[in-house]
């Protein structure tokens, strides 16, 4: 593989890997929400807007 090939590989694979690592870090260190995502409960259709 040529030097330019290595640069292409490292830039492409490295950038996507670093982006994913950064995103996971941000997600895991985000302040906890004041609610759970889960809201599996019977709700009134007419009150959907008030969620």
């Amino acid at each position, binding site marked *: *593989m040529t030097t330019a*090939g290595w640069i292409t590989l490292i830039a492409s694979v490295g950038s*996507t*890997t670093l982006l994913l690592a950064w995103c996971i870090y941000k*997600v895991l260190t*985000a302040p906890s929400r004041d609610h759970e*995502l889960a809201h599996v409960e019977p*709700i009134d259709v007419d009150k*959907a*807007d008030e969620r």
Partner: protein
Amino acid sequence: MSYVKEAWSSRLGVILAVAGSAVGLGNFLRFPGLAAKYGGGPFMVAYFVSLLLVGLPICWAEWTMGREGGARGFHSSPGIFRALLGKRWTQYLGLLGVLIPVGIYLYYVVIEAWCLGYAYEAARGTLTQPGFDYAGFFAKYTGIAADGGAFRFSPDSAGFWLAIVFGLNFYFIYRGLSKGIEKVCLYGMPLLIVIALIILARVLTLGTPDPAHPELNIDAALGRMWNPGDWSALRDPQLWLAAAGQIFFTLSVGFGVIINYASYLRRRDDVVLSGLTATAANEFCEVGLGGLITVPAAYLFFGAAASVGSVFGLAFNVLPAVFAHMPFGAFFATLFFFLLFIAAITSSLSILQPGIAFLEEGLSLSRKASVSLLGFVTGVGTLIVWWFSKDLKAIDTIDFWIGTVAIYVQGTIMIIVFSWVLGVEQGWKQAHEGAEIRIPAIFKPILRYVTPTLLLLILFAFVLSSAFGWNLSFSAPVFAPSSYVTDLFGDTPNPVARFVALFIVMLILFTALLVQLAGKKWDVREEKKAVSVS
């Protein structure tokens, strides 16, 4: 009226579900083939530019519109478009958001069954027999030679695995969003990455597998994939069209899945970081894993000619032969096809959910009834795809008109609605409600001008080149209609292509009728709401 509302149970679950939807067969098969074909560097430049100008903007737009629609009580594209735009007719703008996933499922589940069936064949050593005829086996397995050729039910046939895979999909869909899709993705996605890393380690440590061919070594194999070819290829519109198309399809944007998934979030749940994380996970699987496994592995054993070809050829003819030449080949072949199966099932589950959501909220059907109705419709369609297997004509026809053209159309509608009808300012504000990171300001003009323009250009260029055979030249234009057109309107039309096209038209009309019925129900709901307010 009260009903049990679907929801995600964790943030990680949403992100993995969206990533699972996006990571599919294309990540491991289509992307590497394109990158090798167009010469590493130039393709990657076009690919990342497309990611920034097309992929990410649509992704954020779709997450934002979905969450906003969900906050207004809607989870299907027709309902979300109507809720956001406030006019009855706009529900039809979301029609393709129901039709496309259902249409894609009809053939995707068949390919998914091939993957699981091949994993079984690999595990029992069929694929690693000396002198095995891979092309012949694939032809028999898929019924390429004649219609009805794959219509068998023994464990060594695709039909057996199709029945299992079809049942599995509907079982998980019936279990619901958090207990079905989310659970599968929560375990499936990490498993997929672990398996891919194991196979990657195997490929990268192969060295020079055949001493008689020292030129076929891992260094040259990686070079085949990543060495920049001619940089002047960046002037080739075909390369840009291929790169933009790959970004568009790999992210699962524009066809009703993300908008549906995001609708189960609350208004103050983040969508910017979640959308970016799901995109990053897909890109890692595609570039970081897919880009280092399939094409280099094919090159190592069979040279340059084997590393570029059709997606099916690479997956089912070349790669099994590659594994057969490796130590512990049966084990790695089994892992690889199981990896493809996981990638496929996390995607196929996602393309069933928009249909279920629409039937439940639009027609007030119970979970059991909506699963049964969708199961019946997709069952009929899958039977058609399965039976009309000659030259894979049915798969090819649906993939082109629904799995490609219709997705471009729906994606273009979506970004125009977000950027021009709702307005970028409003969309920008909505996107940042509860956001944990900010979208860089440069994306505002990109969302307003660049992405819609590019999508329109891509749509027209794709249709003109792929359907009407335009050579993408303005100075010496040539048009030679492709088989997608001549099969339907040519002097010697293909009866299967015509039959499948008729089925697609009937599916469109049926979906339009259901959207009409749903609209009436939503009219009543709005009237009740207006009365209660007054």
